[in-house]
């Protein structure tokens, strides 16, 4: 048998195996290190701070958990959120994340490491990303082999699609959920392969952890039944499937119902009915198989088949009836918006208003996955070629996740692991083919099919390892046996190859190319991570003309102003995006926050923001609002400000008060959204417009004032305020805080009170007519 390059011959198989195993451990350790390190850009560039919006709530909840213990956390009623409705926090959150941090915190303190709870929260996501890489390795290993697993782990460790949700400080549910997702799937595949109730239980336990950690658990709830259903339909029903599924479903469902927020949903909502239905179907099939094995009569078999089908139909009919009667909750709006991308905008604007719920743009696939997205189909094709049970799982996962990732930006996150896995499988197959030192026997063209990859090498990404691993696979087939095989090719097809690569030049070309692609991938990931995904969004950064970094810290500046200068029970109204940050950083009650559970309350805020002062004032008084906080980016060009979100406020308010708020009123007659002289009257009167541009033109000292976000000229004569007054404006005007005035002591409306205070004369009035004239 010819080899393309010489191999060391004096290595014992045990040495090779041990070396490969050591190298794998080292590689995994290095991958974990890389995964953690690349997520620390955020800490290095800025500081150890909680990012974005939701993490601020998680952080605050974790503090409560760490300080007061689990039972107080469970019963925590937060009177400062959703003022005055309050929020039953214990029953409306997925506590997995906080519980994880709480356990780590208690453990570290138990071994006398007094780590601050904030640092645990900040570092949790990078820590779990290392575990995710390991889980991906385990999962991929089940599909192909260790070398593919290592590649997948490396991809998973640094792929931007996952880093975007797990940088240090991004203390969100997704931080631990992806690890749980991958590990549950790994346990499921393992259970299915071995027919193991133990691994089924492991899958169920991690499923429970996942349910406790992330609302996206419904993905697992539907993926595993879908996989099982496809297996059944393909006639691949086995007792292994029965054992794996039954143990997973029974234990997983029962334990998931222990999470207060989930409660009875697994047996009462449509989202969970698929899993229940497949469970029932499996019981019926298992029963019929049992009967079949005992009674082989052909007639009886048809009877059983008929009864099985009728029972199945009856079960389906029962579920449908229950759904129609309302015992089972119908599909939620969030579910419909998955299939009809225009649905949310029409019926639930509050969901559509979230930027991460928008459909994904094409460039973001490349941005988040780079060359993996090109290898992804190749990997799926490889799965089709193998098509064992676990490969089917990967195919289904790939199809489903691709669709969802196209519908919503945030679901790119669920696509990322499977892309890493399939891309790793494809790349590993490519490397296997090109690194394999055996050359095909030119004369032996008799061989039919290419050998399956049973003899695939245990290659690892590092070149050295690959060589060693190749040697490991080559070593047993020493030249003598090769010769024997070459003489009798029909006898053992395995050893000699009819297809393969001749010579070193093609190998080097392809491998060099692949290596370069991998290197560029690393460079791309590093660049994307450092430039796009490591910004805490609480702190903004810009570059000075000399290239140095300039930190824009308006948010914290304003939140600390609130904390230091306002009464502790002063209610702050803002758009819901900033609710968690105000609660977390300013520690003040808020009207609405990012837990958008009450549409009417949000619409109330939307109405107050989009109405004139006179209309808004009674709303503000009724809700005891003391301060209004808005985000205004017009001065420095911060585009995510409230004027750009304003139309969503109008739309959401319109959904509740269609008679009072109408979206078209906020556009110019030409249908433009403008803030300059041509702005519509409703726009100019709205509280949001007034608060944003109050005294804005004064800043330009007689020059033409320009809004840098919308690139429009701001009217020279700015709006005036009667019912509220400016309390604080941050350095770059990003955050503006207004105080709501008290009612006038003389019972006048504040507009005329202001006019009086400015010395304007009131129109003379006459006594009202008290009787009719007699004609």
């Amino acid at each position, binding site marked *: 048998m010819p080899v393309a390059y010489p191999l060391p011959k004096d290595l014992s198989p045990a040495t090779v195996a041990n070396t490969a195993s050591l190298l794998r451990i080292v590689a995994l350790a290095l991958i974990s290190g890389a995964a953690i390190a690349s997520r620390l850009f955020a800490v290095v560039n800025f500081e150890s701070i909680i990012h974005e919006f939701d993490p601020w709530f998680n952080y605050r909840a974790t503090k409560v958990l760490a300080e007061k213990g689990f039972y107080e956390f469970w019963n925590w009623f937060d009177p400062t959120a959703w003022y*005055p409705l309050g929020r039953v926090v214990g029953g409306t959150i997925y506590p997995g994340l906080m519980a994880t941090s709480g356990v780590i915190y208690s453990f570290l303190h138990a071994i006398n490491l007094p780590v601050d709870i904030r640092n645990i929260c900040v570092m949790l996501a990078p820590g779990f990303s290392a575990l995710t890489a390991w889980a991906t390795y385990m999962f991929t290993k089940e599909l192909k082999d260790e070398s593919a697993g290592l590649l997948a782990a490396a991809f998973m460790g640094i792929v931007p699609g996952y880093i975007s949700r797990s940088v240090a400080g991004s203390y969100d549910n997704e931080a631990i959920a992806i690890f749980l997702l991958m590990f549950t799937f790994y346990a499921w595949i393992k259970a299915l392969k071995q027919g193991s109730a133990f691994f089924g239980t492991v899958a169920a336990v991690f499923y429970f952890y996942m349910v406790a950690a992330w609302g996206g658990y419904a993905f697992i709830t539907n993926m595993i039944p879908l996989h099982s259903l496809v297996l059944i339909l393909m006639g691949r029903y086995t007792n292994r499937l029965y054992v794996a599924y039954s143990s997973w479903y029974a234990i997983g469902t029962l334990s998931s119902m222990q999470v207060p927020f989930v409660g009875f949903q697994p047996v009462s909502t449509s989202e969970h009915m698929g899993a229940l239905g497949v469970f029932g179907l499996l019981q019926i099939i298992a029963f019929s198989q049992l009967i079949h094995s005992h009674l082989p009569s052909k007639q009886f078999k048809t009877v059983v088949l008929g009864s099985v089908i009728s029972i199945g139909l009856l079960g389906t009919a029962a579920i449908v009836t229950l759904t129609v009667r309302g015992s089972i909750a119908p599909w939620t709006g969030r579910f419909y918006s998955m299939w009809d991308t225009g649905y949310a905008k029409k019926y639930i604007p509050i969901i559509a208003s979230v930027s991460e719920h928008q459909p994904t743009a094409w460039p973001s696939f490349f941005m988040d996955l780079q060359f993996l997205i090109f290898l992804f189909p190749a990997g799926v094709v490889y799965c089709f070629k193998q098509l064992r049970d676990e490969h089917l799982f990967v195919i289904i996962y790939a199809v489903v996740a691709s669709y969802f990732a196209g519908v919503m930006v945030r679901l790119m996150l669920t696509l990322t692991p499977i892309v890493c896995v399939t891309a790793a499988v494809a790349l590993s197959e490519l490397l296997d083919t090109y690194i394999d030192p055996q050359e095909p026997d030119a004369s032996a063209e008799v061989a039919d099919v290419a050998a399956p990859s049973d003899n695939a090498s245990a290659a690892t990404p590092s070149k050295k390892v690959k060589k060693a691993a190749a040697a490991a696979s080559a070593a047993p087939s020493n030249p003598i046996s090769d010769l024997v095989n070459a003489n009798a090719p029909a006898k053992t097809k395995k050893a000699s190859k009819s297809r393969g690569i001749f010579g070193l030049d093609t190998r080097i070309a392809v491998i060099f190319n692949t290596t370069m692609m991998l290197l560029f991938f690393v460079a791309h990931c590093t660049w994307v991570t450092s430039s796009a995904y490591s910004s805490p969004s609480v702190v903004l950064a810009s570059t000075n003309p000399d290239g140095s970094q300039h930190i824009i810290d308006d948010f914290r500046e304003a939140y600390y102003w609130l904390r230091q200068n306002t009464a502790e029970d002063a209610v702050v109204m803002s758009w819901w995006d900033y609710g968690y940050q105000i609660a977390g950083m300013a520690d003040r009650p808020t009207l609405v926050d990012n837990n958008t559970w009450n549409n009417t309350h949000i619409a109330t805020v939307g109405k107050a923001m989009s109405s004139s002062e006179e209309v808004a004032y009674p709303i503000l008084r009724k809700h005891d609002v003391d301060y209004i906080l808005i985000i205004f980016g017009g001065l420095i060009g911060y585009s995510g400000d409230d004027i750009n979100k304003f139309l969503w406020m109008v739309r959401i308010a319109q959904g509740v008060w269609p008679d009072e708020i109408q979206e078209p009123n906020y556009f110019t007659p030409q249908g433009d959204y403008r803030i300059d002289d041509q702005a519509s009257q409703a726009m100019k009167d709205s509280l949001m417009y007034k608060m944003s541009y109050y005294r804005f033109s004064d800043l330009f000292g007689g020059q033409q004032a320009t809004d840098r976000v919308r690139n429009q000229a701001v009217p020279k004569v700015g709006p005036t305020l009667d019912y509220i007054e400016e309390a604080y404006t941050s350095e770059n005007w990003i955050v503006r805080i207004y105080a709501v005035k008290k009612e006038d002591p*003389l*019972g006048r409306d504040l507009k005329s009170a202001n006019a*009086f205070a400015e010395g304007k004369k*009131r129109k003379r*009035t006459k006594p009202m*007519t008290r009787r009719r004239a007699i004609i």
Partner: protein
Amino acid sequence: MLALWSLLLPLAGLAGLVHAKSSSGDSVLVVLEPGLPKEDFSVFFSNLKEQGYDLTFRAPKEVTPKVIEDDIPAFAHVILFAPESKAYAADITPQSLVTLLSEKTNLLVAVGPKTTPLTSLASEFSLILPTPNTPLISHFPKRDTPATVIPIEVASNSLLTAGTPPVWFSGVSYALGNNPLLVPILAAPAESFASDSTEDSGADALVDASEKGGEGLWAGSATSVVTGFQTKDGSRVTWVGSVTLFSDEFAHKALPNGKASGNEQFAKDVAAWTFQEKSVLRIESVSHHHVNGTSTPDFYTTNDEIVYSVKVSKYDPKTSSWKPCTCRSDIQLEFTMLDPHVRTTLVADPSDPGSYTASFRAPDRHGVFKFVIDYKRKGWSSLQSSTTVPVVPPRHDGYPRFLSAAWPYYAGAISTSVGFVVFSALFLAGDVRDVKKGKGLKHE
């Protein structure tokens, strides 16, 4: 020295009888315009002094003493007897007077038929003054005084001493807007109207207005001549249509029927109300707790039985002290979250004077509730209190543990468990027997 004694002696003598002080302070600034010598008001002023007020006099254009300095009012009360002054020193403007009110200073303001800066201020209090130079005129009852000097019957009013004889009045009347903070004290007589008293040219306008159905007509008892106003901050203003109401001349002037006029008593009563001597209430303390508890909890659970009590006291000018007030029977409590969920009357507690208690069940709704007392009655100072308390859902172990309705589920769980144990036992036992059998067969 003699002057001091002459001042102190009557004070000491009267201390037990009429000595009274305001609940908000004793310093009074009297702004008297130059045309009105203070000797003309000696009865009124000496009555105030006797009651313990510390009067400081000043002309409108004098610069000192300032009524307000650095946004801090210098006096507890201000009397503005300047119905004809067109110009004031810089510290007295309509705006600064409103500022004074919001700083809890009380005002007693006299207006007249002439247009002054105060005319524009009056409209801020929903008082609608007639056109300039149209004083109140009445030709009834028959008397020997000019038509502008009118004896007005004093209707019974909780602010005034009962049985006050009619008072002499000469000035303007004004219509009242619909501001709920207004406290009418003395209405114009039904036969009176506002008109130009010197010439008859105004008569046509008057007839026109009355034919239009009364629009623009200041006439009849719907107009008022003395009106109180209590601001939301608790300070009080009284607008009097005539400065002469307080004068010695009217105080001593006999009524058409020969009896003494009520001006002196009326002026005292008006000053007493304006300067927060009368009808002044305040909330001493509020408390709330569970029906069976005494300490104030941080939160309540839904459906808890709550007891709320409030202590109200009333200012007693005779002893210058706050006395428990059992005088109100219509104070209400609201338990509010956006809207009142519970509204109930606070009942006076007979065992504890001044204490009012309400007991109710918290609504079956969690949220941040407020105990709200918002008590507003004409003439009385308003009582306002708002206490925030969260009402939370029951704790995880606060629900009933065993429900009779759940017995089917308990039975199901127990039977399944028992069945599992029995099945396992039988299965294991059966398995062992089979193996033994097989082994036995092999051996055979």
